[in-house]
């Protein structure tokens, strides 16, 4: 057991830290969930890509560094510690790409992965529909086979699409077998948003940014190469992506360690009531504990034990931790907590954590049924 960097890891960390120190914009970029801020963030993504930091764990031929999971965690830790910008390519890199690696054809991989890493294609996800949120099996958007044209015609409505108004492509599930029940008969499609028949409407989130979109599809034609994984296999393919989203890949501890450090800094700048002091200590403890939990999980993963449903434990913990870190900071700020600022915005954003990617209620069901083995209802 060794909880410090090996020499190789230390060298990797030093390189990342140095590059970030030199490259992270001195003034924070405007929010990537606004149109203007998004464009600035895309520039930053291109800078990351140019220095091969966009997707460190990917193969070099797609723009990565073939980094180990440890090195990936180290990069994330350094990235957030440096106060570097949010990753607006997140959906492509952390949600779509793992699915492409697992289910894509070589042609799809070679075409799409480099463009994702380079922030040339900007992907949003099309899971939720007005009547299908936590219950993805309720999807009604459909894809009808157009044999003559050699492809599919997509019709329906997707919603809660993060940054959908600024992206160039959408991945999502569509019903290809209308006779099949619930999660059967779905297919995973890749759709350029400039295809005729697509309309995107942005709308506002709780934190004030226009970061959600509705995507309307009206008889949108895509070719067979737009199918990821098999026809009618969409549920299985999507679940793999969902696993990535919920699991290790999306919520590395770096983000929370950095927030905890900023919280402690804020707390040091003032005299604390005993209650606030304890809250800060506990928030900080929980961020450390989440890192140790993740390190244990990565070790298990490297020993060949996939986290599987245990990744729902991550989701439960980091989403509550994120709210707690921000609520504690607001507590310290007192009356000033009402003012717009990084902590109040962060708090509002954190409230989405227990909701998206499967509500925490669903996650608790998953833990109980698939990890503890309790009977299904």
């Amino acid at each position: 057991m060794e909880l410090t960097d090996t020499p190789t890891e230390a060298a990797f960390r030093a390189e990342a830290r140095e590059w970030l120190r030199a490259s992270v914009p001195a003034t924070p970029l405007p929010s990537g969930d606004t149109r203007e801020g998004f464009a600035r963030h895309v520039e930053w993504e291109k800078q990351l890509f140019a220095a091969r930091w966009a997707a460190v764990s990917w193969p070099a031929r797609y723009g990565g560094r073939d980094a180990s999971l440890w090195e990936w965690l180290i990069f994330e830790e350094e990235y957030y510690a440096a106060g570097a910008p949010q990753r607006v390519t997140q959906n492509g890199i952390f949600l779509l790409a793992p699915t492409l690696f697992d289910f894509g054809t070589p042609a799809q991989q070679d075409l799409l992965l480099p463009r994702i890493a380079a922030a040339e294609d900007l992907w949003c996800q099309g899971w939720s529909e007005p009547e299908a949120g936590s219950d993805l099996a309720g999807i009604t958007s459909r894809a009808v086979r157009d044999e003559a044209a050699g492809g599919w015609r997509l019709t329906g409505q997707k919603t809660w699409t993060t940054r959908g108004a600024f992206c160039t492509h959408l991945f999502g599930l569509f019903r290809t077998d209308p006779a099949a029940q619930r999660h059967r008969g779905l297919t995973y499609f890749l759709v350029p948003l400039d295809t005729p028949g697509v309309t995107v409407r942005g709308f506002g989130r709780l934190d004030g940014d226009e970061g959600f979109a509705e995507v309307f599809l009206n008889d949108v034609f895509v070719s067979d190469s737009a199918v990821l994984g098999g026809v009618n296999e969409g549920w299985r393919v999507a679940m793999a992506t969902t696993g990535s989203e919920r699991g290790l890949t999306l919520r590395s501890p770096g983000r929370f360690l950095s927030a905890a450090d900023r919280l402690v800094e804020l707390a040091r700048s003032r005299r604390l009531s005993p209650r606030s002091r304890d809250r800060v200590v506990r928030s900080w403890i929980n961020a450390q504990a989440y890192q140790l939990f993740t390190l244990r999980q990565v070790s298990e993963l490297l020993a060949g034990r996939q986290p599987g449903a245990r990744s729902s434990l991550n989701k439960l913990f980091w989403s509550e931790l994120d709210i707690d870190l921000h609520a504690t900071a607001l507590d310290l700020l007192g009356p000033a907590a009402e003012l717009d600022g990084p902590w109040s915005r962060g708090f509002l954003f954190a409230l989405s954590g227990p909701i998206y990617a499967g509500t925490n209620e669903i996650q608790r069901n998953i833990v109980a049924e698939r990890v503890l083995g309790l009977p299904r209802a």
Partner: protein
Amino acid sequence: MDFALTEDQVALRDTVRELLAAQCPPDVVRAAWPAGEPAALDGLWDALATMGVFGAAVPEEAGGLGLDETDLVPLLEEFGYAAVPLPVAETATVVAPLLAAAGDQRLPAVLSGATRVALAGADRLVPYGARADLVLVLTDTQARLVAPEPEPVLPTVDGSRALTRLSDATGELVTDDPELVSSARHRAELATSAQLVGLGRRMLDLTVEYVGQRRQFGVPIGSFQAVKHHLADALLRIEIAAPAVHAAGWALARRRPSRATDVSMAVVLASEAAQDVARAAIQCHGAIGYTVEYDLHLYAKRTWALAAGCDVDAHLDRLAGALDLKEEPA
């Protein structure tokens, strides 16, 4: 012993409730946000003035309704329930009674709604400061009326509050009678607590309605035990806080020796209850609760704004002092 609302209290509350349902729907709250049309608020202000709400706790001989803090609490809950985006609770609970007690000549203009007075909070932040003619500032020992500084309007979580900050709180002395000032401060704390109870009820009502309709997995999501338990707990939090707030109003009205700690209890219970209800409401709504197009956020954000000013630590200290609990030297 008798802890029921009187018929008069119920009648007045119901009248205010109906007025607010008609004149302060979510659209009017939205109108108070930066991109809104603030003119939409004037009708609400005038209607409340006409009804006599601003003078509710002003003696009849001074032109008011002659009610006390016990009577005010049900009205304050309604102001919270509607998230009234103007200093209505402040005027009725703090400003008008204080001006009346101090014999201030500006009282009639305040009661008629002609002069709109905002109440400065901690850190000299002034909710509705951008829409006020005057600002009442309460220090530990004095009450002063100060000219508002309507700009800049500060960017806030709750955009309907038109929040500003005073750089100069000198103004003009209204009173330095310590009794009047301390009463005014307690009434301000009561107003916040009661509004938070009302906000909690609003968020719960919205959520109960939504989870009864929204279907997932083939059933209304309100039929899931997890949702039921979130909302049962939310109701419990509100139902426990509400009587404590009302009892604090009664203690102020009767000038009970325990009134300061009674108010502190009300603040702690109501602010934490409303914040917990906000969490539960957003969680049970799912993604739609996280959008600004849906109404829930109006009430959740008002909850957070009011709670930010509550200083629960100070109230816990007050209570610990009253209970004579000693703390370890740090």
